[in-house]
């Protein structure tokens, strides 16, 4: 029973949405209602996730676990943002700029660190994996597309070179199409598995 109900609910919801998309005139109103329920449930789930996160870090602080200082910082930032939004409102320009002043450096630094890590990985890949078809092709392709991304070659305005660059820039489309096809087939199969009750990703 515990496993059967979610499967039945998921299968019915998927079947109803699929039917409503096809029979839009007849089931349009019900579809809007079901979508609202789904959005509310997703928002509630987000709140539950936030609550679980706060409780976890509170436990870290109470138990004095290693790194509880970061838990204090996280909870403090959350409380300030939450209380500020409640008091000032989401439309307050000062509040939005204050949050952006924190968020921008953090995320930019994170992306910069990711770039450094990737650069270090590129530096180590030849030492760790040696000379192989994979590493050589990786190195050549990375160098080619980095140089192309600089835009210096395009600035030379040489027709032949421009044609070659345009040709090279279309090479990744092959991989992109493969990715998209894989994503589409995967989504279709996942949907079918959910409708048929074969996908049991919840509660386990």
């Amino acid at each position, binding site marked *: 029973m515990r496993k059967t109900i979610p499967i039945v609910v998921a299968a019915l919801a998927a079947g109803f949405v699929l039917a409503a998309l096809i029979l*839009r005139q007849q089931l*349009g*109103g019900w*579809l*809007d209602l079901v*979508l*609202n329920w*789904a*959005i*509310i449930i*997703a*928002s509630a789930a987000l709140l539950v996730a936030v609550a679980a996160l706060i409780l976890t870090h509170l436990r870290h602080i109470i138990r004095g676990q290693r790194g509880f200082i970061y838990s204090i910082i996280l909870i403090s930032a959350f409380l300030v943002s939450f209380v500020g939004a409640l008091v000032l409102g*989401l*439309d307050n*320009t000062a509040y*939005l*700029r204050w*949050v*952006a002043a924190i*968020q*921008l450096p*953090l*995320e*930019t630094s*994170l*992306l910069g660190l990711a*770039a450094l890590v990737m*650069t*270090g990985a*590129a*530096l*180590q*890949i*030849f*030492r760790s994996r*040696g*000379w192989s078809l994979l590493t050589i092709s990786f*190195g050549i392709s*990375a*160098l080619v597309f*980095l*140089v192309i*991304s*600089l*835009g*210096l070659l*395009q*600035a030379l*305005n040489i027709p032949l070179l*421009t044609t070659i660059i*345009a040709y090279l*820039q*279309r090479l*990744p*489309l092959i*991989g*992109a199409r493969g*990715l*998209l096809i894989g*994503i589409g087939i995967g989504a279709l199969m996942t949907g079918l598995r959910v409708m048929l009750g074969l996908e049991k990703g919840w509660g386990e």
Partner: protein
Amino acid sequence: MILCPHCGKENLPVATRCVHCGEDLEDLFRIEGTDPDAGLPEEQDISVSDLLQAFRQEDDSQAEKPRPVISIGKTPEPAASEETQSVTPEGEDEQTPEWLARIRKRALQEEDAAGELSRKINAMEASRAEEHQGRVDEEFANWIARIRENARRENLLAAKPAEPSPESEEGVPEWLRKVRELQPQDAEQDQPSEETIAGFSIEASAQEAEQGDEPALEQSEPAEALAANPQEESEPGAVPELESESAELVLHPDEEASPDARADEEPSEGPKTPELEPVLEELGLTAEVGALDLEEKPSSSEELSADLLLLRKQKENAQMLMTLIGEEGKGLPPAKTAREASKGWYRFILGAFLLLVLAAVIVFVPEARPIKFENPTPAVALKDALNALESGDTVLVVQEYQAATSAEMEQMSAPVLRALEERGVKLQFLTTHPNGLWLSANLMDAADIPAREISYLAGGRLGVLAAALQLDESSAAVPGALENLENYTLILLLEDSQADIQNWIEQAGPWLKAGKLGILASSQNAALLLPYYDAGQLAGYAAGTMEGRVLADALDAPTAGAPSRAYQAGLLVMIAVLLLGMIIKAEADSNARHQKEPEA
């Protein structure tokens, strides 16, 4: 006169050594007029004591049964000894050689014939013993040493199988000789024990023989072990020698029990039994030999292990020494210290060069601004869609990028928004990310357009689907300011995430007319957008700062270049690091090859 077997010259019959060449004369007891080999089996070795024993036998002695023969290291053999033949009474007269009969006859006529001969023999034996004692002692010591080494090696093999080592011609293993050479002190310490063994047993066996057969057999067991162990695994050359000498250690208890016989033996060799005389004569040993240390056992496994450990260590040292000797005279390889030093300078110069190039590019090289650069087809299509907008048209700007990519996205979208604002196009902002709420103000500032409210569409993918369907105007999930998506002339997506792009294309796209969706995306999404454009699901898109700049130029809205220069600097750093990784790897391979070449 007798002839020297070595030089062939004549010598006196009583001479014990050739006066011409000094060779020992073997035919010392040849009697003129007799054939020394007559009546004797060729295989048997008749010694002086045998002769004396034969002389003392009475002609009319009673028949005696063959005495039991006890041999050391071998089972008793009934006819293995000469004594058994000499005391055989039945038919002896017929088998007695002629020369023996003559001697016996002469002995009957002369009172002290045998005594004179015995004295001569004793004198000769003494002279020979003095000359050959040292050499025989040495040979016997070597023989015992080989036995001991064979026993030790057997224990070694039993304790721990070792690699078969080459053996010398003397039967001594190669590794053992090395150990002896490396441990001269131990060898010196072993020497007395070897001498003790050399002095074994002949006396001890004689004493035990006096006690009877069984004690003699029991005491002779260690000797058997010494003889039997090497017989199993020792060299073929050593085993027969041991067997032959062991076989000669024959004891006759009957004779030991006979007081007459003992009395006859005492004048010549003291406590020694006459059966041992041949051995003593051959070995050159006399009464001063010591007792055998029968308790001496092969070295324990621990001692052998210690020897092995030492041997391995010494082998390593020897290998190192051989390497050094092999390299002697050769030219010194390129000094590694010099190579390392040059490598450090090489890396320093390379790094400094890359940094200088990077700094020069950033500071001195003018910004790459293609004069006649043409955007790819999707960007041109987007430009056409934007140029088609007229005053009064409404454009929904969906802001869905993260703060980390805000610089790139603002650089691309700000000129477009400014151009649309100047053209009188109504802009309405929407976001599905909380980030969009506080990033919109920066975007509006960068675009230099009046600040306006941004709507938040909750629910992500479901919210996009609900906004696209929008069957009910009072839907709680869709913001009130958001109209039906069909009412917007263009929906311009500012995206840095492929997932968000797919949400709009796949959830809202099917419910919208063709050409409603235009995208300004970060450069990494360019490849994934082209299939959607080729499928007709997009009005157009521009990805990356380069295409955004060309698009802005096409819209007569030039952009600032500072972020573009930083972007180029970052790309240059990545190129430099990638090249450095390749160079370091190539250098490491080169060093490895240089290190292998001298070894080869």
